[in-house]
């Protein structure tokens, strides 16, 4: 008989005290039928499956790049259908508002005129590109694929932690986690009706192809490609997976050329026109003529083709202005301003540090707060106050004093936890959920998303580059939530 643990002061996805919640009961009963050896064998088989299929990401360290798999944990995050409907609506609402914002900041800037978002916050943003101000883009849609990171607080309430509107990665892991779960842990699916992932990529493909360039005749077939940085990129598997399932060529910058403001693909039979580029390289690297001139990944004069309406680039150039950690604070106001609605899912309380009084307060409370660099991601350049040393706090104190606009602070949330099974025992780990939102003529939310888990005991960092792992996420029909 497996005994897990006491959920304690944290909200636990699976447990109330030491007992399973209603939607986890069937899973829990099934779990009891496995011996430690069986679970160990399955665990080993699951990890090998990722390695065998080459589902790896590259970590760069002192010894150069090494290929690693994202550790997989078999206990899924189970979300009852009703809860999911709320999340789904919240995600659609948020992405719609963010898209309005992006269209607005690169055109009329009504939200600045209305005094809601400070002009300086836009103009000083390193991801706000003058090069694309006024550019008309297909469907006026800047966000083809968003990855919104959600957490739950100690009461189980969902909050948005972060918006990723540039190149959110991880969708392939959603599919691979489900694949491994079905293959190696089929017993656990008994008696659950789960939202399927099959067919969902059809929505992504439709959304992709709906971004017909402004100048393109309506009766011509759209040719799309996925632009990758290549096999050494940490998310290369994600790129391969999506290109394969979207049925579009996976290309590198050197495979493309711009002639007379039109983008072409270099094929064995000569040049072939490209209409839509789903790029997975950052803005700075897209075009060495207009952005970083040392970029080896981009395509010279791509921006010319984009600005002339001859090619669509997805996600649009310049989305970073909307997903930076300082702009995040204004998203609820964006929802109110553009959609005239109240946010369905709240933000985590965030302190901007340019205001003297707020900054002073934050600097005296560093031990209780989380401090993040507004431009960083992947858990880098971040201080987790309660886990920090005096020396680390001093370093961040100085960083904040030197560049207050570069950092934000948030209260340390008691992140929800879920059980993980590693090294032969169960223990509670902090989790978050990346939800993928696909937009074209319509807007869809991939059911579930990528549950990320901080497998290092006590850690709050879920990023795969820092020891985080993944879990399958089930949206189940027909069970109520017992929170």
């Amino acid at each position, binding site marked *: 008989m497996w005994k897990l643990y006491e959920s304690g002061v944290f909200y636990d996805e699976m447990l109330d005290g030491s007992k399973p919640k209603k939607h986890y009961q069937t899973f829990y009963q099934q779990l009891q039928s496995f011996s430690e050896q069986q679970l160990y064998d399955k665990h080993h088989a699951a990890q090998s499956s990722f390695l065998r299929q080459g589902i790896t990401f590259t970590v760069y360290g002192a010894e150069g790049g090494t290929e690693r798999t994202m550790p997989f944990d078999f206990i899924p995050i189970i979300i009852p259908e009703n809860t999911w409907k709320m999340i789904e609506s919240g995600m659609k609402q948020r992405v719609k508002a963010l898209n309005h914002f992006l269209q607005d900041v690169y055109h009329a800037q009504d939200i600045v005129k209305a005094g809601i978002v400070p002009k300086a916050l836009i103009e000083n943003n390193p991801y706000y590109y003058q090069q694309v101000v006024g550019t008309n883009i297909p469907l006026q849609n800047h966000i083809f694929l968003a990855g919104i990171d959600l957490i739950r607080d100690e009461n189980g309430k969902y909050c948005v932690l972060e918006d990723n509107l540039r190149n959110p990665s991880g969708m392939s892991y959603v599919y691979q986690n489900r694949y491994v779960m079905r293959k190696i842990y089929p017993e656990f699916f008994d008696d659950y009706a789960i939202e399927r992932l099959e067919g969902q990529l059809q929505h992504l493909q439709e959304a992709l192809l709906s971004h017909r360039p402004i100048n393109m005749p309506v009766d011509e077939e759209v040719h799309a490609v996925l632009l990758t940085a290549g*096999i050494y990129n940490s998310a290369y598997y994600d790129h391969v997976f999506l290109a394969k399932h979207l049925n579009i060529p996976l*290309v590198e910058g*050197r*495979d493309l050329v711009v002639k007379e403001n039109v983008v072409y693909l*270099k*094929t*064995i039979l000569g040049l072939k026109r490209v209409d839509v580029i789903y790029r997975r390289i950052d803005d700075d690297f897209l075009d060495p003529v207009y952005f970083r001139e040392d970029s080896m990944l981009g395509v010279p004069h791509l921006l010319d083709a984009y600005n002339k309406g001859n090619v669509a680039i997805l996600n649009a150039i310049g989305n970073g202005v909307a997903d930076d950690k300082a702009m995040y604070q204004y998203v609820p106001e964006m929802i109110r301003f553009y959609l005239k609605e109240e946010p369905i899912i709240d933000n985590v309380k965030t302190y901007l540090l340019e205001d003297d009084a707020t900054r002073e307060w934050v600097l005296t409370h560093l031990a209780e707060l989380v401090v993040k660099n507004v431009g960083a991601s992947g858990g880098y350049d971040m201080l987790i106050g309660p886990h920090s040393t005096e020396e680390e706090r001093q370093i961040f104190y100085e960083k904040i004093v030197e560049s207050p606009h570069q950092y934000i602070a948030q209260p340390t949330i008691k992140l929800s936890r879920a059980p993980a099974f590693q090294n032969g025992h169960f223990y509670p780990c902090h989790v978050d959920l990346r939800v993928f939102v696909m937009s074209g003529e319509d807007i869809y939310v991939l059911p579930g998303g990528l549950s990320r888990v901080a497998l290092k005991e006590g850690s709050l960092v879920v990023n795969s580059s820092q020891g985080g792992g993944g879990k399958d996420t089930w949206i189940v029909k027909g069970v109520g939530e017992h929170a």
Partner: protein
Amino acid sequence: MLSRVADSLYWIGRYAERTQANAHILYAQLEYTLESNHKDLMYEKESLIVPTICGYIEDYQMRYPQNTLEDMVHYLIYDRDNFNSLIATITSVRMNARNTRDCLPNELWEEWNDLYLDIQEGAYPETFALLNTTNFLTHIRKTALTATGVIDSLMTRDMGYKFLKIGKWLERSEKTALILHHLLEIEGQLEPDRAIRLGLQLTNTAEEYAYRSRVLTVDSVLNFLISDVKCSRSVAYGLYKIRDTVYDIEQGLTNQNVENMYRALDELIALTNVDMATLTLAEQKQRVKDIRQNCTDFGPILAQAYYLTPPILAV
């Protein structure tokens, strides 16, 4: 199809074929060596055949002057500075497959990736032990054969398939020409019939030849391995397959580079179209040498026709 992708697929075809052929040649040589006396004069004369056919002989002799069996095995299997060592060609197959995963069946990737991971995890240590080495070679050959099966059963006959196959056929034709060229050069130094027997053994066609013919002469073996289009390892077989495939790719369309490719291919095929019995030994040697050189030259001509870029090498 993207030129870069076509290029990677072409090189997967070449490296996979090279891996399979070299693993076979080394395996055959190890078996033969078991029955030889190392002090035997013939053994010494034959000991450079395999490094010549499967590697770079000057490089080998410079770095392994002792030329022991262990040296040869290390150079041809594990030496990463030898771009043709099995470790290097397997890594190159995997790297190029990784670069084209969106165009390949998962099973093909998994087959090569499994072998690569086994090597990385130390399943076949570099310390020489005959059993370990032959097991490793068997594993490599099985992987290569399974991968060929996966390609034939699961791949659509589209451009990707065609470039994989062109790489494989060209590699095979060139290897057969290389083997024959070298054996003819040293034929006088070997025991009677040894060169032609080796030719059949190293091209893995001894059984097929015996099934087809009872006569074993230099002329008949040369005809079999050069111009017989029923022998899947003959030079002509590969070249005709390449010709059919490039005509299929072009579908009548052409340009200067493609014209050059057609011309080079026709010239090469014409060289193979000969009855070796009508030539003197000196003429045979020259003919085989020309065939080999033209096979080597054809790769860059093909690359020019399809805008191919340099391959990814093992790093």
